[in-house]
Every structure is written in structure tokens, then in C-alpha cells.
């Protein structure tokens, strides 16, 4: 190994591990910590490393602001509905991709990637025209449809891999014991594929909840969700307002993280992206 002998010295690798963890946590967490501090700052000027004075006055402003309240409401009546619709239309498709043979199976599966590959802003021009004709501009269902686009890939690919991983022997055994096809699906296939479906639903919710560009074009001025309001807040208000709003906007994702972390690490996400 010559001059790289130190790679195999345990002490060196332990020290490298410490350096890595320190660098990674600084890189990932310091920007977020900055926002967290800004949310409670009253005055924070360079070159002070921490705020000179703290205050909760901006929290009052944000929490009692009508625009913020309405944005929170719109976010929470769109994203969960989008996730539910995505599940209803995509899960049967995922099962079909996993179990049935039909013409164009592989092509259709991969074509879902187009939903991620065409720059969204280029589509919105054409979608807006379509929505104008269908009277969907500025409506609740227009926003739901536009947010649905970003959930398709995750909601089909990841559950399809989940269905793939259910052992056929188990289903066969249940069938041999006299269970009908629906019974087999409900009591064997679905529960075993559930972790992958949870990961997919979770990613779909985040995608819908975070969608800003399409919602801005289709929804405004009637329907303003939290991420679209964020653009306005960042530009027009002092730092604490954006920081406080960021905390509110991240809260749902963080709560979901704590619930779904176990499943995320189990490889269901990666399995979904490995094609077929």
C-alpha cells in the first residue's frame, strides 16, 4: 500500500471519523441553527456570533397574522388530500407494475420519470392555459392537481418495489390454505408492503407540502400555501419573520421524520429507484 499505509492505522481512522462528524454536523446544522437563533433575535449585528438581544415579539406578529393563519390552513387542507389521492390512484398502479404483465409495462414505468425531468416552470405556462379553460385557476382543485404531479414517481416506484419484495411463497401458501385473492392481498401482501407504502406516502406529503412554484401560479391570489407565502416573507420582512415561519413550515416534516426514520433507513426508498 506504500505511502498510504496510515489508512489502515485504527487511530488515524478514528481521528478521521471525528473530523468527519464535526465537519458534517457543522455543514448540515449551522445554517439551521442560524435560523433558529434568528427566530428569537431582536438585534443581531455583525460581528457578533450570537444575537445581541433576544425577544419574542415577532412570534406574536407571525402567530396573529391573518395571512399566516390562512396559509397554514390552506397547506393543511391541500397536502393531506393530495397524498390521499396520490395513494388511491398510484397504489393499484404500483401493484400492477409489480405483478402483471402487459404491453408497455417497462416503458410506462420509466415514463413517470418525465414528471421530474421537464422543468416545471416551462410546463406551468401551458398548464395555466389549460386550467384557464377548465376554470381551475385560483381554485382548490387546481392546486391539488398541480401538487399531485410531484408525488407520482415516489408513490408508484417505491410501493412497486415494496410489492416486489413480498415473497410469492407466502401468498401461495395462504391461497393453498383456502384464502381468496382479496383475502390474500389484505392479510398478506398489503401488510408486508406497508413499510414501503409509508415511506412513499411520507415523501408524497413532503413533496406536496413543499410545492411552491406551481401553487404560486395556479393558486394565487386566492390560495396561498405556506411555501408560497414564504417567498413574500423572505423578501419583504426582517429576518426573524422568515426564521419563525421556517420553523412552523418545517415542523410537520420533522414530526414525520421521527415517525418514518426507521423505514427510510431500511432501504425502501433506494429499492424504488432501482428500476425494473
Amino acid at each position, binding site marked *: 500500500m506504500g505511502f498510504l499505509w496510515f489508512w489502515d492505522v485504527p487511530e488515524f481512522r478514528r481521528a478521521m471519523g471525528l473530523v468527519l462528524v464535526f465537519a458534517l454536523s457543522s455543514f448540515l446544522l449551522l445554517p*439551521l441553527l442560524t435560523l433558529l437563533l434568528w427566530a428569537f433575535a431582536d438585534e443581531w449585528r455583525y460581528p457578533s*456570533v450570537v444575537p445581541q438581544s433576544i425577544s419574542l415579539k415577532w412570534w406574536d406578529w407571525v402567530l396573529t397574522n391573518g395571512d399566516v393563519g390562512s396559509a397554514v390552513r390552506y397547506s393543511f387542507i391541500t397536502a393531506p388530500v393530495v397524498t390521499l389521492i396520490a395513494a388511491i*390512484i398510484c397504489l*393499484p398502479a404500483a401493484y*400492477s407494475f409489480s405483478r402483471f404483465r402487459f404491453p408497455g409495462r417497462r416503458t410506462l414505468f420509466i415514463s413517470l420519470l418525465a414528471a421530474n425531468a421537464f422543468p416545471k*416552470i416551462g410546463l406551468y405556462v401551458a398548464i395555466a392555459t389549460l386550467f384557464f379553460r377548465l376554470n381551475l385557476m385560483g381554485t382548490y382543485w387546481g392546486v391539488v392537481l398541480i401538487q399531485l404531479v410531484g408525488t407520482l414517481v415516489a408513490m408508484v416506484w417505491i410501493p412497486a418495489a415494496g410489492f416486489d419484495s413480498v415473497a410469492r411463497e407466502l401468498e401461495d401458501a395462504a391461497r393453498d390454505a383456502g384464502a381468496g385473492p382479496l383475502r390474500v392481498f389484505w392479510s398478506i401482501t398489503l401488510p408486508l408492503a406497508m413499510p414501503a407504502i409509508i415511506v412513499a406516502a411520507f415523501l408524497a406529503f413532503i413533496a406536496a*407540502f413543499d410545492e411552491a412554484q406551481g401553487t404560486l401560479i395556479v393558486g394565487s391570489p386566492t390560495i396561498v400555501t405556506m411555501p408560497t407565502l414564504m417567498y413574500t416573507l423572505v423578501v419583504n420582512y426582517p429576518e426573524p419573520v422568515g426564521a419563525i415561519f421556517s420553523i412552523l413550515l418545517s415542523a410537520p416534516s420533522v414530526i414525520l421524520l421521527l415517525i418514518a426514520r426507521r423505514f427510510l433507513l431500511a432501504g425502501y426508498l433506494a429499492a424504488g429507484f432501482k428500476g425494473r
Partner: protein
Amino acid sequence: MASVSAPPLRGRSDRADRLREAAIGLAMVAPPIAVLLFLIVLPALQATIFSLGIVPSDNLVFSTGQHLIKSDSPTLAVYSDLLASPFIRDDLWLTIWISLVSVVLVAIVAYVLALYVRFGSGSLPRIVRSLYLVPMFVPVVIASYAAITFYVDRGVLAAILHAVGLPFASPAYKPSGVVITQVWFNIPFAVLMLGSGLDGIEQELIESAHDVGAGFLTVLWRIVLPMNMVPLLIVLTFTFIGVVGSFTIPFLIGPNAPQMMGVAIQAYFSNYNQPQPAVAMAVLLFAICAAAGAVYVWATSRSNKHAVTV
């Protein structure tokens, strides 16, 4: 793990059965494909036709735009005008350049983290295992905003470096600011993807290589990298597609001139009322993304046909 084609259902697989299976299968995949057709394929086709100079008279957004090129037969005039503009050319090169640099950095950082989580021992890898997921739960608007407040000139990082007496050049509103934020944002997906590939490499294989005297780097270069090639290609293509078409990160933390194409498209459409050049730029980006998508399709189909594991 994923099979090439679905194994035959039980029972006799005669013609009628297969037709029935195909019909049910197609019916079940129809809804998401319909959404795709209605909201992506159709608008994308309209946009492409419009960018070729054919202006639909019933589309007011399209037909009242400034700088309109109208033609009865398809023409590439919009594209040649675009590419003749030095500003657009700069935007395009900046976009490709930022995307490539981001992709390479994401791959390197994610690979180091995935290797560490997979092969490291002790409690530190467990910390990394929780840490690298953090950006996945931060909406991209907030990630960009956090990056600005942290990296801006006379911001927090400047203050920290000032306190320890180090010089600081802010990356905010520069290409490097976009790259830093893109790396930050793309780490979780990349590490999850690479990590699941590494999980498939058996510990015994590594140990037996060690036993015959292979060092860390030899094992990495000769065993781990070749066995983990497909997840790496997936990470490269998906990160590339994500960065090329990105809007929020370059909009909030990127440079103004030249700017990334995602921001330029938005400006041409909303601020300059020039939908035709905007749409043509989107088609250009799509062509670039499609090329990257082809790499993904090639890599996954090849591995799913030949490999036993993946």
C-alpha cells in the same frame, strides 16, 4: 431484487388468461399515466410546438407575448435567436457547469458518508446515520433561506470566522453559493441510495480481501466501487436532473448575471412577458435532462437483466 418481468401467475397461462391479465394491468396503471399525460406530456407538447414558432391563436398567454416568432411551418428560429444571445449562452453554460460541479461534489461527499456508515465502527457512524437525513425534512425554500442567513456577507459564518481571525469571502449570490446549497439539499437521497447498494456487499468478501493483504483503498477501488456502480449512476442522474431544472435555490442564493436557466425561464415568462423564449429554454433543459435520464434507463435495465443482486 427487482425482477425483469413478472413471473407467470399460477395456473394455465393460455391466451385468454394473458389478455385478461394485460387488460387488468393496463387499467390499473391508467390513472397515474392519465395524470402524467394531462399535466406533463400534453403541456410539454404544446410548449414544444409553440417554441417551434407555431402560435395557437386561442392561447392568450402565448399569442400576446413579446418577442414572438410566428410561423406556419415549424422553424428553429426561436432556438437560433436564443443561442445567438450571449446572455442566454452564459446562462446555459453556468447551468451546466453548476450542475456538473454539484453532482460530482454530492457523489464524493455522499460516498464518503455511505462508506463510513456501512463500514465504520463505534458510536460515531450511528450519529452520522441520523445526521445525514436532516436536509430531507427541510423544505427547499427554507434550506435556501437558511443558507443565505448563514453564508451572507457579514452573516453568521463571517462572524464566526472573524472571531477566530480567518478571512471570509461570501459565496452568497455567487455560483458557489448555489453549489453549496445543492450539495446540502441532495445529500440524504444520495447517501440512502449509495448506502443500500453498499449493504448488499457482503462483509465476508471484504474480510477475505483483507486476509490476502488488500488495503483499504484496494478494497474500495477493486471491490466496493465496481459492485456499487448502478446506485452511483442513479445518484448522478437524479441529482443532475434536479439541479439543472432547479428554481428556488438559484433564485434565492444564486447570481443575477449570468443566472441559472430555471431563474431565467421564470424571468422571461413573468417579468419580460416573453413566453416563447421561456418555453424554448424549458425544452432545451428537458433535452439535457432526457439525455441524463437515458443514462439512468441504460444503467438500470442493464443491471436488472444481468445481475443477480442489486
